[in-house]
């Protein structure tokens, strides 16, 4: 039956993701033409590695946005998870499994705290997460005095390097911790959202929470799960970042929230809830990375980077809103 395929491709062509893909392809072609460095294996791996942190957080935030909430406390959550986990590893020794277990535990617990305030006291999620961002970060700075940790366990500093292969002359590539974690985060989030009933309940709740309640959804449980998931992603991202930076810096993560929000919103997720896809988030992240990387490769001052990111978000959101208006007008006329 070829017909449904045509229909679903038609639907894809009208989707936000399709336009995003076209923009990215165009941008890549242009950048590849302007700078031979851009379309190299080296640059691709570098980009994946350096955007893993933002990407993993973006997947957590995607789930929160689909559920109809928002969370911006995740950078503070990540800072706390990173500092506590690696201090413990330095003091008592640890391995890969135990550091990730600790970081995930801390992230999940702080996420649950957000969920409890938001659901039990019915405070808007933006306000709760602004408050908890400051509280988590404030406590961290108070107890650590803002001191960096430079000495990490050797096995952690070395990282992992799997499936090594040669490409071109004397350069070898492989799957490092960052790329592995990013890939797993994408896979798990995609499975959660599209292949489990809980994921579909999250979409449903974000689309119409009153209706979800009437159907007997466990709204509180779903919200705890969603904010915990965000926290868990923050925990994982924090270790990925520390491994890349080869240090723990309590002050550098907070302030990166808007990059993450940018990637998810560029990917078509709606702040109103119920809308957003893993593919969209991947493309949003790609666009953000290509844009920021391209600006550097073109030799434009990196001070321009926020300007272009802002411009692209505005254009993309306006284009989507405009095409929706057009379609609505078309439906209304019929």
């Amino acid at each position, binding site marked *: 039956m070829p017909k449904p395929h045509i229909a679903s491709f038609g639907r894809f062509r009208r989707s936000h993701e399709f336009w995003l893909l076209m923009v990215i392809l165009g941008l890549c072609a242009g950048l590849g033409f302007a700078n031979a460095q851009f379309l190299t294996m080296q640059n691709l791996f570098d980009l994946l590695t350096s955007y893993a942190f933002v990407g993993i957080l973006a997947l957590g935030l995607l789930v929160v946005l689909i559920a109809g909430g928002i969370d911006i406390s995740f950078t503070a959550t990540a800072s706390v998870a990173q500092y506590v986990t690696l201090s413990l590893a330095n003091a008592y020794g640890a391995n890969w499994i135990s550091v990730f277990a600790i970081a995930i535990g801390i992230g999940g617990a702080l996420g649950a705290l957000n969920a409890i305030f938001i659901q039990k006291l019915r405070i808007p999620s933006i306000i709760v997460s602004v408050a908890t961002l400051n509280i988590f970060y404030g406590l961290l700075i108070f107890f650590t005095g803002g001191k960096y940790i430079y000495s990490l366990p050797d096995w952690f500093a070395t990282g992992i390097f799997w499936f090594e292969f040669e490409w071109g002359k004397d350069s070898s590539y492989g799957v490092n911790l960052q790329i592995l974690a990013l890939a797993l985060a994408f896979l798990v989030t995609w499975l959660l959202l599209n292949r489990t009933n809980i994921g579909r309940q999250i979409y449903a709740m974000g689309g119409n929470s009153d209706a979800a309640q009437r159907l007997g959804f466990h709204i509180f449980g779903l919200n705890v799960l969603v904010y915990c998931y965000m926290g868990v992603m923050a925990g994982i991202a924090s270790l990925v970042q520390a491994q890349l930076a080869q240090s723990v810096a309590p002050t550098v993560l907070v302030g990166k929230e808007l990059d993450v929000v940018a990637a998810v919103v560029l990917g078509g997720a709606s702040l109103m809830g*119920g809308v957003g896809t893993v593919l969209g988030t991947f493309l949003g992240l790609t666009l953000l990375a290509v844009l920021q990387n391209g600006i550097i490769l073109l030799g434009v001052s990196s001070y321009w980077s926020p300007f272009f990111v802002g411009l692209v978000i505005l254009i993309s959101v306006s284009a989507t809103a405009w095409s929706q208006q057009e379609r609505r007008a078309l439906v209304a006329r019929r």
Partner: protein
Amino acid sequence: MATFLEMSGISKRFGGVHALRDVDLTLEVGEVHCLVGENGSGKSTLIKIISGVEAAEPGGRIVISGKEYPKLNPVYSTHCGIQVIYQDLSLFPNLTVAENIAMAHHLGGLHSVNWVSMRATAKSTMAKIGVEFDPDAKVSELSIAGRQLVAICRALAADAKLLIMDEPTASLTRHEVNALIQLVSELKRAGICIVFVSHRLDEVLEIAERVTVLRDGAKVGTFAADTIDGRKLSQLMTGKSFEYHVQAPELAAGPVVLDVKGLGREGEYEDVSLQLRAGEVVGLTGLLGSGRTELALSLFGMKPPDRGTIVLDGHPIALRTNAEAIHRGIAYVSEDRLTLGLILNQSVAANVTLTVLERLAGAFGLIAARARQTHVARWVAELGIKVSNPANPVKTLSGGNQQRVVLAKWMATDPRVLILDSPTVGVDISAKDGIYEIIRRLARDGVAVLMISDEIPEVLYHSHRVLVMREGRLTTDVAAAATSEDALRQAVNA
């Protein structure tokens, strides 16, 4: 006929207020049963008790399919096949048709989603009632009537034996209502009991076999539909009797205020000519999409016409914005007062003064508190708005009182022309009468009123002259005394 549900001695109290008092209800398998009553009569509470959302007070008995449920909850009630389609439909606009219909697949503990069986369920359910939507289309892409069909499918997919529909026709066109009535009789033939809650009494009488009337939380009685008529029904609902007569056309003998010639707007309406006289109430009816709302919006400056002339008090005017229209004395009360006409969270006072802030401004453009208070007090008294304190938010008021606030807001601008779009939608019968009284008084004071409505009796009995629009053209312009309900119905649907 077998009995599906039997309730007796059902009472419910919220705080000190009796929402329901000793109500009995019996529903037979395969019957269409209408539930009518004014706002606050206890209809929604009764539905909530049937669906297990609210528990009845001790002493009541609920028997479903021969089994007694002392503590009914939503899980049991769903299990018994009781499904409610709420007025807002409770669908998920961001999900596909298939997911919405087969929502039950998503319940329960963590498990994987079977998209194939979900689509199959959706398709076979849709086939049962003869509709064919793309199962992968998003519900937000469907029309309101389409969404309603999806909601019905969802109830059927959940194996409904009793389908309760709360105001299902509120946002449907006449054509769509006919299709729904057709569908209801098919469902009835399949042995499903249907409880139909509606404000529109002519529909109730058309569809129901039995009608249960509630008033002030008590049951007035259950009647066979063929033993009562609309007048009797409204009397039972309100405890008062209303007799309406066609208005005498002599009342409408003022000078022409608004003279419209050859007005047209691409794709919406064309070649519309009409006159409104001071002191005249003109009713305008037509199907949804006939161009009536677009015409009204053009007269209010929100959809500027492409062709034709508008003359107000002898001066040709070109309206480009609604601010101009308001300035020239044209006021428009929109159909959807909840989202367009009122700021629900703000006080009655704030809403009433919204249109006249400039006039209330004193020195330095600041608003004098005393002038504001006097203004608010005057309009609250004049329109009889029932509010203990004008500082209370509008959302705490009943539908009829909210509509009075909207009217006060526009009447305060001293309009020459007042356009009312469906002024009594969602308003009780007794509150409706109050609104008609206000409209009559406005006309007596020399305002030209254009009243748009779906309900033919409303335009016939409360206007001096009736206009009918069909497919973008004004097809009928007749004195109310010279026509009848049947003639108008024909003109609208022909």
